[in-house]
Structure formats: C-alpha cells, structure tokens
C-alpha cells in the first residue's frame, strides 16, 4: 500500500546543549510545503581507473540531515522558530507573555522531528539556517524554515508537548504595515502593502571532521536580514527618495539612505511584530501595463545593525507561552 503524503507533521524542541537531543518535540504542527526531513547524501563517482570505460564505484563523503518546509504561523511555535533563527530572547510578563527576540552571537541547538505516516525521524544539534515570514494579500502568513543538524535518529518518537496542528494562525488580513525608506520622519509611515517577506539567513555551514560521515557541528556565518514589500503607492516619492536621497531630489545619491519597517499581525489576543530600524531599500521603477491597473513598487531592503548597535530586526511576540 502506498504511503499517504498528507499524514505528515513536524516537531521541534530546544536542546539544553549540543549533544543533548530532545526525546520528543516541544511543539508540533502540520506543513504546507516541503518535506518533514532532509538528508543530503553527498556521493559521487569514484575518480579511479578500471578495466572498463566506467567508474568502478561511488565515494560517499557526507550524510547531512536537516529540515526544509513551510508552515502556518502558529503563535506558540513561531516563537521557537524566531528564537532559533535570531539567537537571543527576553521574556517578560505573567500571562500573556511578551517575548522580545533579537540577534544573538550564536543560535540555540534544536532537535527537529519529522513524521510521515508511521515513520518518525529526528535530527539533533539543529541550527536554523533561515526563516522567512511571507505574506500575500489577505492569505495566511507562511513561515519557511530551513535548518541543518548533525546526527539523525531513524527510530524517534513524536509526542508533542504543544500540538499546534489544529491551532489558529496569523493571517495577512490582520496586518498593520509601515515602511519608511529614508527614516526622515523618524517613524515608519503606514503603507498599502500587497505582499511581502522578511527573511533571516544565518549562512550556516557544517563542520565535517575525519572519523565521522555526519557533521560534527553546524557553524553560523554572518546573519543577513532581507525584506521585500510590494507597495501600492499614491505617488513615486518613495522610489525617488531611494534613488536621490530625498523625495524632491534631482540627482542620484552617492550613498544609501536608511529607512525602517514595522509589520504586525494579530490572532485573537496574540500578536507578532517584526521591525527593523536601519534598512537600506532599493526599488526598480514600476512596470507599466497596457491593460491598466494600479502601479506597484517592489521594495527590496537589507536590514543592518543600527548606528548605535543592536539588532537588525526585532521580533516581539505576545502569546500564552511562558517560556521557550
């Protein structure tokens, strides 16, 4: 009998330290796209002569497990994914709790769990390579998660402490959006946004050492925060400001201007806000269309460290989850 592809769940738990795999997920949920487990088996034809015009075999040089999927933005689970990709967390309150999540020097180790039918696998010492928060129109917010780990457990268990599979999630129609391309007002101005994404990349690389076919560790690289927003503008001041430095500029600016953004979604009493205070935007001049329709400007921004230090992006999550 074939395997039913809809019987799939993902789980995740924070480890106390490297090598201390969790036995069950803290959070579990369904997926909308991708796969519940990745195993990158690195092997290629052996570069060796033989008695025929073919290679005599294949060399295997690595077995690297990970995770790569998209899911809904469930409030509780989202907190661990944001902490996992950013690296620093401060929790206040006594219910509801406010989790302020910012860029840290390193990332927490996670154990990921993948369940497909009756097959359950886990990957320990996982770090999140990237998390993207994507929204389009009024649709549910999508979270794209990608991670890399060290050792896979092919006989894991899956009993989620919190099962978010049937829980509600953030949707774009609840959003409030503000974007400012030059920071001139000091506060991001409300924007008509049709779609957008905020992606945090950690540029992970595995550390392979002699003596093991699996990675010894996963190491973080530079953290890069990219944002994109499709805006329906009332005028072209935004584009002109990006190119010339001011909304009335008449020549190209030699240096970038920095702006800001703030994106917030609500789900009942839960909220999540993602904000950056030093973002360098670019934008192509908008396309035209013989069929007509409103002009859209597609902003692409790089969020960097603010001038006074700190974090390129701050995620503020308010929910009923006491801790991560």
């Amino acid at each position, binding site marked *: 009998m074939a395997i039913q592809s809809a019987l799939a769940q993902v789980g995740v738990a924070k480890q*106390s*330290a*490297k090598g201390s795999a969790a036995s069950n997920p803290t959070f579990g949920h369904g997926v909308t796209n991708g796969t519940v487990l990745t195993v990158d088996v690195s092997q290629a034809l052996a570069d060796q002569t033989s008695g025929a015009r073919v290679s005599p075999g294949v060399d295997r040089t690595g077995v690297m497990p990970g995770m790569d999927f998209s899911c809904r933005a469930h409030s509780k689970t989202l907190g661990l994914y944001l*902490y996992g990709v950013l*690296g*620093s*967390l*401060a*929790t*206040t*309150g*006594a219910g509801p709790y406010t989790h*302020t999540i*910012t860029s*840290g*020097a*390193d*990332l*927490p*180790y996670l154990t990921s769990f993948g369940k497909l039918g009756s097959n359950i696998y886990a990957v320990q010492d996982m770090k999140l390579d990237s998390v993207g928060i994507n929204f389009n129109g009024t649709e549910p917010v999508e979270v794209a998660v990608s991670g890399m780990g060290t050792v896979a457990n092919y006989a894991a268990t899956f009993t989620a402490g919190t099962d978010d599979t049937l829980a509600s999630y953030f949707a774009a129609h609840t959003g409030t959006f503000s974007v400012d391309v030059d920071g001139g007002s000091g506060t991001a101005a409300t924007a008509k946004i049709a779609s957008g994404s905020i992606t945090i990349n950690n540029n992970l690389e595995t550390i392979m050492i002699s003596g093991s076919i699996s990675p010894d560790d996963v190491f*973080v690289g530079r953290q890069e925060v990219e944002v994109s927003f499709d805006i329906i503008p009332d005028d072209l001041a935004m584009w002109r400001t990006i190119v010339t430095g001011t909304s009335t500029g008449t020549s190209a600016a030699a240096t970038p201007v920095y702006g800001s953004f703030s994106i917030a979604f609500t789900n009942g009493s839960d909220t999540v806000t993602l904000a950056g205070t030093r973002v360098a935007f670019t934008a192509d001049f908008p396309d035209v269309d013989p069929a007509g329709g409103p002009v859209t400007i597609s902003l692409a921004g790089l969020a960097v460290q603010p001038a006074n*230090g*700190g*974090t390129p992006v*701050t995620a503020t999550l308010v929910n009923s989850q006491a*801790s*991560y």
Partner: protein
Amino acid sequence: MSNYRLPSDVHTETNFAGVGIIEHDFKAGVVTPKDDAEQIALDRLVELGIATVEDAGSKKQSTKVVEPSMTDLPSEE
C-alpha cells in the same frame, strides 16, 4: 557598574559560540549585576527598552565582590 530598574520579572537567553545558552532570571525592581555576563544581559534589556539604567554608578567605582570586602557591601546602597 550601574544599577538597572526592571518593571517586571524578565527571563533572558543568549547564545554564544563555544559556551551555549546563557540564561538569566531577573526579578522586578532594582537589579545590580553580579558579574559581566549579567551586565551584558541587562545592557541588552536597556537597548530593547525593557530595562532602564537606575544610576550611573558614580557613587562607587566598583562593586566587584572580593571575599575580604564582603562586609562593606551593605554600604553600597
């Protein structure tokens, strides 16, 4: 070393390469950091707008705890 004021209890976690997760639990009120790690965590809370600096630490240059001077600590208030 400055004192910090926290309006509510705060739990912090920050990850460092080769060290792992460093966790702190601070109670609401005025907090004096016990070590550099706590001060870094509290400075971060100031950056985030969660904590405020209570004083500039100008009354006493150091609150470093050294065993023979423990009896002096109450006068630091």
